[in-house]
């Protein structure tokens, strides 16, 4: 395979959403939305995706920056991860997102990569990325889950023919913060809870989000419910930077005089979407924040896990990360 050489495409840089919709209509399945390009260009260079028209969103007005709203903040989808890391408002209230964003890839990639792109990026399953025609690519097999497959990076939960995992570091944080996604199209705007925005292969095996063709993610809204709560983020990867999570945990805990009033605990790297640890959350609500409570959460975090041949190690990882999240948030 010859790499680093993209096939020809037309590049469009619309300045208004309406123009972007127009272009999407015009090119249909041949259109590709691009924000910072950090995921997109990889696909193009590998020639696994060959769009006819690339619609770059960066020139559209009003899609960047962080705004305070009546109930929290709204972050433009085209805001770079570096901007989010540095934003005073986000730092003050949503340290969890800052921490998650700062663990993405490398500083260079964060300078260009956007939050919208990070949330909409495709999975890193190496069979799928190699351009093989697996279920996710429209084929009829999952290479990672075949008797021959190497699947140490793949999922514990929610497999449905495909065993890929969601690679985004910011997605678990936004689910933990109970954020919502503002999705726009020619037909208007709809708001989708983060938890429902990310979808598994059981819902749609070729897409990782609820976005439909013609829809653009314009903003992310984070409510004040967990503003300045106790947060915990940790990502286990083989390298300290420039590496995807084997498992990550993002937790937001509301703690009043030592008692956990509310909790949202989410793991990355274990399912095709960020996995909310509801059983663990239920187990700790109303209890004191201590090692014992943390242990109780851990015991309820990996129930139902179905390890593949090479990824059983992820189970103790999930348990240990949840323990730490509850204990140290």
């Amino acid at each position, binding site marked *: 395979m*010859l790499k680093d050489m993209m096939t020809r495409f037309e590049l469009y840089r619309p300045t208004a959403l309406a123009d972007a919709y127009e272009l999407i209509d015009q090119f249909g399945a041949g259109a590709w939305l691009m924000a910072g390009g950090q995921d997109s260009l990889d696909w193009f260079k590998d020639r696994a995706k060959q769009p006819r028209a690339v619609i770059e969103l960066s020139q559209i007005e009003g899609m960047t920056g962080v705004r305070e709203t009546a109930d929290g903040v709204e972050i433009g989808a085209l805001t770079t991860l570096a901007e989010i890391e540095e934003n005073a408002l986000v730092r003050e209230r949503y340290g969890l997102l800052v921490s998650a964003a700062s663990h993405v890839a*490398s500083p260079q990639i964060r300078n260009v990569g956007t939050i919208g792109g990070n949330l909409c990026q495709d999975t890193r399953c190496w069979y799928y990325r190699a351009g093989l025609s697996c279920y996710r690519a429209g084929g009829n097999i999952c290479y990672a889950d075949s008797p021959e497959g190497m699947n140490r990076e793949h999922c514990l939960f929610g497999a449905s023919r495909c065993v890929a995992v969601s690679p985004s570091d910011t997605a678990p944080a936004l689910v933990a913060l109970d954020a919502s996604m503002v999705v726009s199209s020619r037909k208007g705007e709809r708001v989708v809870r983060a938890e429902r925005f990310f979808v598994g292969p059981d819902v749609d095996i070729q897409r990782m989000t609820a976005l439909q063709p013609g829809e653009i993610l314009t903003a992310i809204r984070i409510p004040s419910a967990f503003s300045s709560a106790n947060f915990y983020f940790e990502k286990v990867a083989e390298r300290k*930077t*420039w590496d995807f999570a084997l498992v990550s945990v993002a937790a937001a805990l509301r703690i009043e005089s030592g008692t956990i009033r509310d909790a949202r605990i989410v793991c990355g790297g274990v399912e095709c979407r960020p996995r909310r640890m509801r059983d663990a959350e239920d187990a700790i609500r109303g209890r004191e924040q201590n090692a014992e409570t943390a242990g109780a959460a851990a015991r309820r975090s990996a129930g139902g896990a179905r390890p593949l041949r090479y990824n059983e190690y992820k189970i*103790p990882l999930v348990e240990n990360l949840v323990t730490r999240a509850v204990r140290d948030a």
Partner: protein
Amino acid sequence: MANDSKFTNQKFKLVGTRVMRPDGVDKVTGRARYGADASAPGQLVGAILRSPHAHATIRKIDTQKAEKLKGVKAVITSADLPDFTGGEGELYNVLENCMARGRALYDGHAVAAVAAVDAETARRALKLIKVDYKVLPHVTDVDLAIKPGAPVVQPGVKTKDKKAAPTNVANVTTYGHGDVEAGFGKADVIIEKSYKTEQVHQGYIEPHACLASVGPDGHGELWVTTQGPFAYRNWCATLLGMEMSQLKVTSSEIGGGFGGKTHVWIEPIALALSRKANRPVKLVMSREEVFRASGPTSPTSIDVRLGATRDGRIVAADAAMRYGNGAFPGIWGEVGAMAAWACYDIENVRSVGYEVLLNRPKVAAYRAPSAPMAAFAVESTVTLMAEALGMDPVEFRLKNAAREGTRASYGPTYGPIGIVPTLEAVKKHPHMRARLGKNQGRGVACGFWFNFGGQTCADLIIDVDGTVGLSVGTVDVGGARASLSLIAAEELGIPYEEVRCNIADTASLGHNDMTDGSRGTFSSGMATIFAARDAIEQLRVRAAKAWGIDVKNVSWKDGKAIAKGKRKSLTLKEIAEASPNTGGPISGHSQVVADGAGVSFASHICDVEVDPETGGTKVVRYTVVQDAGKAVHPDYVEGQFQGGAAQGIGWALNEEYVYGKDGRLQNPGFLDYRIPVCSDLPFIDTQILEIPNPNHPYGIRGVGETSIVPPLAAIANAVSDAAGVRMTHVPMSPPRVLAAIKASRAEKAPTG
């Protein structure tokens, strides 16, 4: 005098200083030209079709459609590379590895190639080539490959001394002396352990790249990133049926090689394409191709048995070392067997190396090839033994270390060597006394490398303005131009800035062996000294002529000719300026087989912190102590020490070729093949010892390789210390550490 390599024990003025490297500015400004930076008028772009199968018979290759595509100027298969090698031996293997001949032996094996007017067309042409494969069973694991019934990689290969059926063991070599079994009989404590290391790649930043041009008259030129232009010339010329003098090879700047650029891969293909198309062809590997189809180092599986008496003396040592060679036989198990016990003085010692064939790419050298895995197994066991005897691991090593006069397990008797001094330095180092925190552990390990010398040739020209041009034939991989300029300036007695070192092409200088085996500064340094001495002879003759005295009465000191007894002197510059009228150009020349490369030893200390809940390992402190003989340029010596340790850290903790059961490489890219980046490394502290090599005028030993030998073991000893469980499988990635901790807890838990 000119070619006397005896150690001079002189006081240096320049050697040992930290001057600026001559290639530095070009490299940081982007002006330096690497393999892919050359272009020629009318140049075509080459591309290679590679086997997607680990093992297959190639029934038929249909190139017709590709040939007809507009813009395609040549399509080649093995049929365009007739066999000039006689059909067997190492050269034939090189030929077959460059392009499959009737069978594909690993995922990524080249099958056909095209040259076209642009990359896009070349790529489309590849898609039009139809290859009819019959897929065969394959084997990629060292231990599985030697099991009875395993698929046979090379039916023609039979283990020596065995009339049996073909196997995947291409060769067995044994080293050692004494009576090992009798030795174990005397031992109070015997430790036996098995180890495994995964395959890793050198990971040089610059992929293989070349520009080849063969004209209708049969003469050719090759611009290429290589560690050895002369060797590349010889191989390429032979494989293409050319005279050696018909091919001129010029080495580009090199973006790292570490042994991976001591073998030809795409170069013969580029030349064959150019010859067929009658146009220059540029061929550049993608990173994926580098991983799949260049030469990573061996995966290994090693069993070690060590016996010692209660007072801490090793009385017997034995190792069985299985090294994956990829699809073609090599010498990697043998080198591992030679290096295994080299640090110690052992009465009864044996090591057996097995060359195991696999459906993986042909293994190439990687920085002290084979020694790091041997050291991992041996040094882990040595620490286990020290623990079993209740001795300090450094004391235990000191007690058994080789010294001057020790007979090495691989044969020779050592001269003055550095293993004891490095261990003494480790003992005294403040690192050893630093307190360890929670979940932290410390490991120590030693390492050895042979170092090479070999054929070397150098020219030193004195220009009429008195500046000096030095031409050497060893590619500068690690700062050698600075070191060699320092040596020339030292010998001549002129400032460093007045010497410019150039890497000659194969048409401009006599043969030079490759830059490998840490030989660059040792060998070319020696040749430079001899060439300078030769030039000085002539400078003296010219001065004598000017003064009308006998040359015997002219001495050379501090860059000047001095007349004996008279107060007359002439500087190098003055003699050079007069040279057109005193006999013409002045230049020194030397050609030697640089024997006597001094062996090299190192001892490393490593502290790690292991997170028992995630299996993640952080290297918190690292110290390298190594003997350099003489550190000509201390910065670059330290750089070599640090670089070797950094590569060792990646190897120990993260790097690994992951093959699926289908025999395909799953992680051929830097994202999934995890080389450590800056944030994964601590500052690597270094301490240079200088135990002069008696066989070099300046006492130089090679320094480039030994530093990668101890890290696997040092880190394994540290991780085992921190995690409380012995790690025997490298890389020690989070999944593996976590699994080991879990297994050891299950083992320790009371049953029932």
